[in-house]
């Protein structure tokens, strides 16, 4: 049985700054606190979330978040046994702030430092929330990411496919923008789709005719734009019903693609313990039902961690750090921030994950 351990996690790789305290207690890991200072309430007039990309903004918030996480957990700094931090991938300014803060804390405390891959944090979340065992298949949909991962261990990930252009959340945001719905688009499009006829518009199912698990959503957005413009040209505008039908058709197309590709990803994987879906996609009832059915058809349990632990958070970083600690990883002051850091280093080089990012 793993030794008891209290670990502090830091996350600052994109829009949010987070800190969390997690404790290993026998077989379980318990989240003692998980705080996030989010910029997502700063929705801009131009329909999206304005990112706080400035490194100094993360740097200013990190120590406050750490204090808050410790206070909420009822833990003092000297009681922390290890410090885990997102070391990439992400916007380099934010990642760097987190890594520097973690180095300072680890050095000051004389405790181990662990650099965590942000995507590994997401991919290991089902182990934290649902006690999932390896190996499992993961559909990871978060921010700009959308990929199928086979997870065989805390450091063993195999990427089976992913989006070659837009991520689904992005496609929802853009469709909402096209149809005059507020941001974020996911819940708005889903709500409008409820009263719509998904069969009225003939929208494409991109890449379904091709082998493999890659996905594409950019063309679907363009198809919605075209259908919208045709309606505007023919009748001078859109009715509520037109919009509902467009939303329903779009959602049905995305559901078909996600379900079809998920079924394909599960094929030939041998014995898996389950199919996990992380990210906003699991918040959509239609997708959830379809993906649940795909898992059931493969005879596997379907797991969708709570949304708060699917968006960027530090608890997942602390947990991934905990697992890395248990397999003996230790980083030191040479730990560097990596803007690009593919999870699956063995896969054919993904040209899209170029070696260098901004300010590499």
């Amino acid at each position, binding site marked *: 049985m793993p030794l008891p351990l209290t670990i502090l996690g830091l996350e600052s790789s*994109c829009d949010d700054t987070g800190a969390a305290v997690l404790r290993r207690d026998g077989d379980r890991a318990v989240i003692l606190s998980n705080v996030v200072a989010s910029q997502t309430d700063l929705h*801009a007039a*131009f*329909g*999206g979330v*304005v*990112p706080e*990309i*400035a*490194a100094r903004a993360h740097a200013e918030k990190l120590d406050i978040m750490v204090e808050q996480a410790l206070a909420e957990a009822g833990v003092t700094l000297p009681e922390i046994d290890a410090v885990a931090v997102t070391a990439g991938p992400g*916007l*380099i*300014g934010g990642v760097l702030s987190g890594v520097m803060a973690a180095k300072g804390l680890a050095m000051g405390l004389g405790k181990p430092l662990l650099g965590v891959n942000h995507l590994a944090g997401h991919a290991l979340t089902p182990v934290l929330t649902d006690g999932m065992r390896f190996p499992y298949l993961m559909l990871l949909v978060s*921010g*700009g990411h959308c990929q199928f991962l086979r997870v065989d261990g805390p450091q063993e990930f195999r990427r089976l496919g*992913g*989006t*070659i*252009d*837009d*991520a689904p*959340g*992005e496609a929802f945001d*853009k469709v909402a*923008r*096209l*149809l*005059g719905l507020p941001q974020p688009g996911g819940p708005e499009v889903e709500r409008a789709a409820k009263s719509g006829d998904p069969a009225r518009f003939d929208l494409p199912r991109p890449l379904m005719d091709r082998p493999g698990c890659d996905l594409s959503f*950019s063309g679907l*957005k*363009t198809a919605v*734009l*075209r259908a*919208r*413009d*045709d309606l*505007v*040209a023919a*009748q*001078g*505008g*859109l*009715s*509520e*019903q*037109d*919009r509902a039908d467009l939303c329903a058709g779009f959602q049905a197309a995305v559901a078909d693609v996600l379900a079809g590709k998920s079924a394909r990803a599960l094929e030939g994987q041998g014995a898996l313990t389950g199919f996990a879906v992380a990210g906003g996609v699991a918040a959509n009832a239609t997708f959830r039902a379809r993906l649940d059915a795909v898992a059931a058809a493969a005879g596997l349990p379907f797991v969708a961690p709570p949304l708060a632990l699917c968006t960027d958070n530090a608890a997942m970083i602390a947990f991934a750090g905990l697992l890395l600690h248990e397999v003996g990883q230790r980083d030191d002051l040479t730990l560097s921030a990596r*803007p*690009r850091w593919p999870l699956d280093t063995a896969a054919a080089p*993904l*040209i*899209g*994950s*170029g*070696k*260098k*990012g*901004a*300010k*590499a």
Partner: protein
Amino acid sequence: MSRAIILPEDPDLAAAPAGWVVVAGRALAGPEATAALARAIAPVLRAGDTILLQGQLGAGKSHFARALIRALMGPEGECAEIPSPTFTLVQAYDSAAGEIFHADLYRMGDPGELVELGLDAAMEEAICLIEWPDRIAPDWPATAICLRLETPVGAAERREVTMLAPEGSDLAARCHVAVAA
């Protein structure tokens, strides 16, 4: 028919800075023509060149950028994964012609964040493709050109491309044949 929906007005595209002129332009028959334009421009690009891509949602900015990045990467670019930079703001690629930065400034709040993204330095050393340059107008780099993609009324498939550049732009001269063809 039930109550009509007021669709959002497309945001105005920023005017080019003073001293910039229309260098060339032509019609593009469809998405494949947009990609062909990108492939025709690719061979003349070198490190330090910046192309600003202007146009509404769905105009083909990312489509153009993907085709250009694939062309610059050569054979391995054919099946390359080129994710949208809308969330990540910047995606970087390596190519024989040098590093390529693909950026989307749509979510950017303050023009000063260009420095945080490393784009100011990249514009000197890399090939930069920048969507939504409207966010930094009128401070467009003097070494850049702008390709504006517009959809003619009543022709959903077609696009009009216009190349804008500072007078005497070397990059515009190199791209002229491809854009005016």
